């Protein structure tokens, strides 16, 4: 019951090369509070967090920690104060063990003053720290062998062991399954009991509502309001974030045509086992399942990124060989990958170059020169259609916020006008307002005759947008449903058919031997 807030940020402003990211923002966090930090992409949440963690410097304003004014010049300093940030791209060393990561730079020595590390002691202590947080995890396990959820736990344990009083989490739940999210929230509640405050940024409204004490909303670089957890509803938050009413999942009924893409008995070394399904013209096929079920792997086979061991792919009834992504593109297949940064964007190039990356040859003249006017027009069209926030189409993509980068990747594939589009988690990391836009766009494309395979881990999205749903588990198809005849429970049941629901800390034990190389989808 402190009379003053643990953290107070007053009148913070920050600008980057011509973009005002934050304007006069006030922000406070109380001791032992779980605070939900929300806003559309580009609203300034990440920027504020980075200022607090010493990555960015503020232009103006003041920061008070436990009532005292402080200057935070570096992440190291922030940590020394007790402020730890856990980013989406976790900051762990994959090849080292859990204990080594937790004790990084403060290793337990066998003999004081020497470099000899007491690994056994470290591992025991690490296990104790995690147990205190309610997590069972062996201290000597290599981090790269853990699931993303478990890795997050390690990061949190690391922060707690360094006496963090404030833990900031940037979209911690975007890569987690429902059960893992529940475990994370339990952990947060436990932290709160210990007097540690948590600020977490998320776009998943219903999740946030279940665990926070208070929600602060940002829009366009300003703080637009706050609301107590008990009084908050999804609708109210959305309205604050967006400033207008938003209708989710604007699915339009579209006449389904003939089969466009058919896959039969796909089997490959990446874990896909005997997968078959058909997608029709104008249809949105939802591909559901847990992380690691094999959905992205299936997409990779169709898009030529991985090699088929057996099975066939038919487009418009004709069997085709797809040996490379270039061939897939030629056949009219577009793929919006899950990991936009790694697989979707050339960060050093600008918006217009990234947008036209898949259609360069198409918009070139006889001499091979890219038609600048056409490039500009196409890019501007999609910047408008997807409401991509950027100062200009010549802006380097690296400078855009995550959600807008996402949209550029979408724009790239949309401009290629494929007949078949595979979208892997199309709205992950995108704010609510933009989500609705993407969904509206998907409906429109379906109306125009595109066949869409939508891989998604968000139940509402799957149920709300798909004409048909296919569920996968462990590389196999375990369920198929028509729109309107499927429930979340049914999907969940099929998605976990072969799994014994064990502690989330270790990889799910396999029901039967799975070919080598089958690993959970990389989440970095």
């Amino acid at each position, binding site marked *: 019951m402190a009379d003053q807030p643990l953290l107070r940020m007053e009148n913070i402003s920050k600008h980057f090369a011509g973009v005002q990211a934050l304007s006069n923002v006030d922000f406070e966090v109380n001791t032992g509070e779980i605070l939900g930090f929300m806003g559309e992409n580009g609203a300034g949440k990440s920027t504020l967090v980075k200022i607090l963690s010493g990555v960015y410097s503020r232009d103006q304003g003041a920061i008070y920690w436990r009532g005292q004014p402080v200057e935070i010049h570096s992440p190291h300093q922030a940590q020394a104060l007790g402020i730890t940030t856990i980013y989406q791209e976790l900051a762990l060393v994959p090849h080292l063990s859990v204990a080594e990561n937790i004790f990084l730079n403060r290793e337990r020595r066998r003999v004081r003053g020497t470099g000899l590390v007491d690994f056994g002691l470290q591992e025991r202590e690490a296990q104790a720290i995690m147990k205190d947080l309610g997590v069972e995890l062996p201290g000597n396990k290599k981090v790269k062998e853990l699931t993303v959820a478990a890795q997050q736990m390690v990061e949190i344990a690391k922060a707690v062991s360094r006496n963090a009083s404030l833990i900031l989490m940037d979209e911690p739940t975007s890569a987690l399954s429902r059960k893992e999210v529940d475990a994370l929230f339990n952990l947060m509640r436990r932290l709160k009991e210990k007097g540690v405050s948590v600020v977490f940024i998320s776009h998943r409204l219903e999740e946030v509502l279940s665990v926070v004490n208070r929600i602060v909303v940002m829009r366009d670089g300003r703080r637009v309001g706050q609301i107590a957890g008990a009084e908050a509803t999804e609708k109210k938050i959305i309205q604050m974030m967006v400033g207008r009413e938003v209708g989710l999942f604007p699915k339009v009924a579209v006449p389904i045509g003939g089969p466009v893409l058919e896959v039969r008995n796909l089997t490959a070394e990446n874990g896909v086992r005997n997968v078959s399904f058909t997608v029709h013209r104008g249809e949105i096929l939802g591909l559901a399942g847990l992380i690691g079920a094999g959905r992205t792997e299936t997409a990779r086979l169709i898009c030529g990124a991985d090699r088929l061991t057996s099975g066939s792919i038919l487009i418009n009834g004709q069997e085709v060989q797809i040996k490379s992504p270039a061939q897939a593109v030629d056949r009219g297949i577009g793929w919006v990958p899950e990991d936009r940064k790694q697989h979707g964007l050339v960060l050093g190039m600008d918006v217009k170059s990234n947008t036209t990356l898949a259609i360069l040859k198409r918009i070139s003249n006889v001499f091979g020169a890219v038609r600048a006017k056409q490039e500009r027009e196409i890019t501007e069209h999609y910047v408008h259609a997807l409401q991509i926030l950027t100062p*200009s189409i010549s802006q380097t993509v690296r400078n855009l916020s995550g959600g807008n980068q996402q949209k550029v990747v979408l724009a790239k594939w949309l401009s290629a006008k494929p007949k078949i589009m595979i979208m892997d988690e199309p709205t992950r990391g995108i704010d609510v307002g933009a989500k609705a836009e993407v969904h509206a766009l998907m409906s429109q494309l379906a109306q125009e005759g595109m066949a869409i395979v939508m891989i998604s881990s968000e139940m509402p999205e799957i149920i709300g947008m798909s004409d048909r749903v296919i569920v996968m588990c462990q590389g196999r198809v375990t369920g198929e449903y028509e729109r309107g005849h499927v429930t979340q429970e049914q999907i969940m049941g099929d998605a976990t058919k072969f799994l014994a629901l064990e502690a989330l800390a270790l990889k799910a034990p396999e029901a039967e031997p799975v070919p080598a190389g089958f690993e959970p989808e990389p989440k970095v």
Partner: protein
Amino acid sequence: MNKMETKGPSGTLSAPRAGTGENIRALLRMTEVVLLVAVLLLVLVGGVVNPHFLCIENIKIMTRDIAMLAIAAIGVGFPILTGGIDLSVGSVVGLGGVMVAYFMMNMGLPIWLSIILTLIIGIGLGAFHGLFVTKLKMHGFLITLVTMGLARGFILVLTNAFPITGLPDQFTNLGQGYLFNLIPIPVIICLIIAGLCFYLLRFTFIGRQIYAVGGNVEAARYSGVAVDARIFLCYIVSVVCATTVGMITAARLSLGHPGSGEGYELLAITACILGGASFAGGEGGVPGILIGAILIGTLQNAMVMLNINPYYHKIVISMVLLAAITFDYLRRRSRRA
């Protein structure tokens, strides 16, 4: 639907009108401008210390050297753009000179055929590099390091370490002749090559795709870019350019020397990096590389005209490279807020 509606987070278009101060600072941030200024300074200083530096005869020599270096630097820029490198440039210069001389003198082939055959050897070697880089996923550094030795060894064996002399006048004209009695022919060749490469990289889809491969090869691949084909092209261009420089050198010296080009890769790569190319790939362009070559070439000539001990030349060039990469890294770091 065509009206562009882009807005910054505060709903307004981004930067306020830039003043003159801002404009000058923006110009200085461009590598090319900084380099040009450096060249001008160098020329001024050189001209003051030794007036002969600026006389027309020296300028002819200087521009010829610069042209040859520029061709090699632009060539090596291509693999560097993809994130690789070509260390065999120096040895290939020797190879080009020796082979064209060999074809003409030892095999008695006509000039045009000798040139074409030498170029074909260049294409073959470049393809060899490309093969290892794309199919075996080897870094360009490794395979070109190997051919650096192989090529040099080959020509030493072929010539028994003796230069092949007596090249015909028609051929040597390519290296020693002038257009309009003023512009050395190598400069013309350089301008043609630079022009073609500039067009390719800046305006065509192939050039754009090369930049994409250098920027993020996976993203390029998944976007349907024929990544392997582009990498092949880059390594072939590099060797062909170096081969051309080798032939021009032979024309200039009137002989094919198995030792020529030794250490040339250092100069070519330095000029490239000076000109703004990044070892990580995805950055750099012909104008920058040209100016980088001008700077290095002017520097070399100046060092001779200023009577600087030749043993110091390598040190000076290396210091320039150090300055360039430090400056570049600092600039990169300041980009991150």
